[in-house]
């Protein structure tokens, strides 16, 4: 690529981190996506405080078209759509972040242990990943979520608490979505660790008598951070998409709580030949589309910046 040539001139005087930052800034699409993401997050965090409506406050004013009072209109229960979209986006982003975190922990540990142990352990662990890969992930997530849901219900009933019920739904999504999204991460980390463990500095560590756990945690894992960050960034949008997909099917967030997916589902449920409530679909869908787009390009930009070999 031509910008790589331009960077070569002053490459000697800069750290890899600075170079990555420069590469990222040269990528205008990624930079715009980054700013868009920042704006969206600020909007989600601050927005609801500035709006006079509560997300679950019912009113007589049903199916109101967008107006000065309700910027994005109201829904079938007369709730303000703008504040619901912002709250829904909070939930969607939260599920995306935490789910990606769960997948990060499982994937990195699994991949690192497999790559570092090598041999038979590696073989067994990676065959497991292959088997899980050959399960269609959407199908797997549906089966997993319904199974976990029943287990959770029993568990909560045993503790005699109902306050946790709504939070349990979120917890369920975190665990379920994280549990199906770690496979790529595990494969990538394993590949990296496999090549790292033959390096001279690891040999030196062994010669100094450092324990295996310490070598893995202190000397190998810091070296895979770049790749891990990249795939973390690319996992978040895919988990958000899964979540909205599940919520759309009624398996995700339960009312009155809402996520972008369940808002879209609610809008789609109001399609009828007599009147069209277009705002109930267009706004949540637009918000979801914009978020996914920005996250994907941001992730792509990070990959090109941090992992130049991938180009």
């Amino acid at each position, binding site marked *: 690529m031509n910008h790589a040539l331009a960077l070569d001139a002053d490459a000697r005087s800069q750290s890899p981190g600075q170079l990555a930052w420069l590469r990222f800034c040269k990528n205008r699409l990624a930079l715009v996506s980054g700013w868009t993401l920042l704006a969206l997050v600020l909007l989600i965090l601050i927005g609801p405080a500035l709006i006079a409506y509560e997300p679950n406050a019912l009113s007589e004013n049903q199916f109101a078209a967008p107006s000065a009072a309700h910027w994005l209109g109201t829904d079938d229960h007369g709730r303000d759509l703008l504040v619901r979209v912002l709250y829904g986006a909070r939930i969607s982003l939260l599920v995306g972040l935490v789910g990606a975190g769960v997948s990060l922990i499982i994937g990195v540990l699994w991949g690192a242990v497999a790559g570092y142990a090598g041999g038979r352990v590696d073989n067994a662990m990676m065959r497991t990943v292959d088997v899980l890969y050959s399960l269609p992930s959407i199908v797997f997530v549906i089966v997993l979520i319904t199974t976990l849901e029943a287990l959770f219900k029993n568990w909560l009933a045993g503790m005699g608490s109902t306050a946790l019920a709504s939070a349990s739904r979120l917890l369920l999504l975190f665990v379920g979505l994280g549990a199906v999204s770690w496979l790529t991460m595990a494969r990538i980390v394993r590949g990296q660790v496999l090549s790292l463990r033959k390096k001279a500095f690891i040999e030196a560590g062994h010669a100094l008598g450092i324990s295996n756990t310490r070598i893995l945690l202190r000397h190998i894992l810091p070296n895979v951070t770049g790749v891990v960050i990249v795939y973390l960034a690319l996992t978040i949008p895919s988990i958000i*998409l899964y979540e909205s997909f599940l919520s759309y099917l009624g398996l995700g967030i339960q009312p009155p709580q809402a996520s972008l997916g369940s808002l879209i589902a609610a809008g789609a449920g109001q*399609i009828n030949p007599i009147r069209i409530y277009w705002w109930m679909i267009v706004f949540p869908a637009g918000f*979801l589309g914009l978020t996914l787009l920005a996250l994907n390009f941001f992730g792509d930009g990070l990959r090109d910046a941090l992992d130049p070999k991938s180009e």
Partner: protein
Amino acid sequence: MYYFKRILALVPLLLVISLLAFVLVRVAPGGPFDKERAPASPEVERALKAKYRLDQPLWKQYVLYLGDLARGDLGPSMKYRHHSVGDIIKQALPATLMLGCLSFGFALGVGIPLGFATAARKGQWVDYGGSLLALVGICVPAFVIGPLLVMSFAIKLKWFPVALWGSPLNAVLPTLALGLFYSGRIARLMREGMLGVLGEPYIMTARAKGLTERVVLFKHALRPAILPVISYAGPMLADLLTGSFVIENLFQIPGIGVFMVTSSQNKDYPMVVGLVLLYALLLLVLNLAVDFLYSRLDPQVKYE
């Protein structure tokens, strides 16, 4: 020989998957008969459990299931009492296959030319317009584009029916909704592939010896550039076949997707395991097909 081995390797893989699904659905508390309208007397419940072998230990249930499976019997559905899982799948599969294949054709038919054209006219308005179109396709998931299409083309403009399945007109909107995302992905892959190939020295040679741009693009660049598209096509078809439930749900298409969600909620054990197996088989076979096609198209790829 290599492919023979690969096909043989599918058997243990499918066994592991079936075991996983088998155990996973049964671990969950609650049984398939919990939601019956009238609470059954203990005798009736016992009889039902005996009939579906739920009174036996898990390992024995699985062994018996495998025995049935070897004879091609996926077992009876516990929810739709008078049908076997095999019958239900046989009845519902054609609609799903049809929808998946139509969307597959649509994605390739739109994506490849779009990607080709944007790469061939790089930096011109065709490129910007086409790339923007592909972007929009990628960032809008099927369950978003579906309702929007229904709203505008079925309800407002009345060009197509709102839902149901059967006539060719019924198929248009679901195909579009399902295929749009993938056509965007294909267009991007194709564009990247073409741009990569067009930078190769042999393309310069082809141009230097005075071949027309047309021959260079179609004869020399197209074949290597299409390889990434092919390797994506297998998982894509699998995604289209397994991921169509939202679209089936929205357009009320009588496919298998509807059963996937309801049967896992109803704890219809044989149905869930049967569907998981079906989906896994589809995915595995398609991946194999891609590898095969790849070795045919790219002489550098050789499998032992």
